[in-house]
């Protein structure tokens, strides 16, 4: 059904989106936690800052990433020197762009879940001898699961569909940074690309349906008999 290059695009997209979400998730969780549990000066500003990638045009976010995380950028240099990690014009950069763009979508539902969590349950767990960490993994996290899944699904979908920031930051290089969205865009630019574009759009749609269905299933399973 799909040609070899198309398969490569699909796999690259999946890798980019999954890596983006898996890496962004813990950071998003920490931020959501801080926003939900603490009061501090500038909290609203922090929330606003996180919302930024939604507000400013994706192209602008892409430029900012290019300037900061490019080979010449301060942060780009830092990551390269310290972690040996290069973003510019690499799939890692596409993942970074996808992660940044998906970030606000990850944070909000998680924050909502954390805010509505009954803290009495954590107290009960600790009185039963479980330390903070254990309580987190045995009580808090399972109860936050619906929020985390909601965020992850939104984020994953966004990461799959990300276009503007990605093309601006890491360009549109087949085999390296050309994700499904970028490939679809390219195909739509060519007179004869419609059929191929349609095929890729369908692939995107199928992937996201699978992701949503899987997340719903997971949530139903893990929430068990809770009503």
């Amino acid at each position: 059904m799909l040609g070899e290059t198309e398969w490569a695009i699909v796999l690259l997209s999946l890798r980019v989106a999954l890596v983006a979400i898996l890496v962004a998730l813990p950071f998003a969780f920490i931020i959501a936690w801080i926003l939900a549990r603490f009061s501090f000066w500038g909290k609203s500003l922090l929330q606003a800052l996180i919302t930024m990638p939604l507000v400013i045009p994706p192209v602008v976010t892409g430029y900012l990433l290019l300037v900061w995380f490019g080979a010449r950028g301060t942060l780009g240099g830092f990551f390269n020197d310290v972690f040996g990690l290069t973003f510019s014009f690499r799939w890692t950069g596409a993942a970074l762009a996808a992660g940044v763009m998906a970030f606000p979508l990850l944070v909000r539902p998680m924050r909502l879940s954390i805010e509505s969590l009954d803290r009495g349950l954590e107290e009960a767990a600790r009185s039963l001898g479980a330390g903070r960490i254990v309580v987190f993994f045995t009580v808090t996290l399972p109860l936050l699961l619906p929020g985390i899944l909601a965020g992850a699904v939104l984020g994953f979908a966004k990461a799959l569909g990300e276009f503007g920031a990605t093309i601006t930051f890491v360009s549109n290089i087949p085999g390296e940074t050309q994700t499904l969205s970028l490939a679809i865009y390219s195909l739509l630019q060519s007179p004869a690309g419609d059929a191929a574009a349609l095929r890729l759009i369908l692939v995107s749609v199928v992937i996201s349906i699978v992701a949503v269905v899987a997340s719903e299933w997971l949530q139903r399973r893990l929430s068990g008999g809770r009503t």
Partner: protein
Amino acid sequence: AEKVTVFAAASMKEVIEQAAAKFEAKTGTKVTSSFAASSVLAKQIEQGAPANIFISADLDWMDYLEQRNLIDKPSRKIVAGNALVILTKKDKGDAAAILKAGRFAMGDPSNVPAGKYGKSALETLKIWDEVSKNAVFTENVRAALEFVSRGEANAAIVYASDHTAAPDLVEAYRFAGSTHKPILYPAALVGKEASAEGKAFLDFLASDEGQEIIKSKGFVGASDKAG
């Protein structure tokens, strides 16, 4: 053999892909390309993108890089030209009459090159003031053509090369080259130390064989300087 990376304006996609295939068959050198807006590509090159060749849709962005000493000045050459046409669903006619009849699509004259040329041509014909209220400005050619195909707009002012993307439309009018600045596609090697393979591909584009491909896609040959 080394591979060559070409950063080209999105409108050159068909041309470059076909030329790359021929070139690869001939020399064994692989050509990868990234297609995006000229502005995006220029800024990426400014940030150290791994491009060997930049092909811009207008002179401004090539100048932008040249001023910053980011291209190999001697290698800069015009590889193609283009003509400005009005495409409609109906038959040929007078430019003024067509454009007055209703909405028409064109590139945004403030930044999209086709829009700049279009506006200047209409001004030369002294109908800009009359028809500009009917104009809708698009970001890319594809959208402009789609507007006409779908009947949202009567006509689109686009490049002659764009016609291949919309075979259902007819060329109703072709602006004389004298009504606007020449439409030229400059190309150049990126960086101080140009790669031999890059130079070879650039030369290939300028060769008769390359120019044949360019013309077959509706562009005007570099030597014709028509438009």
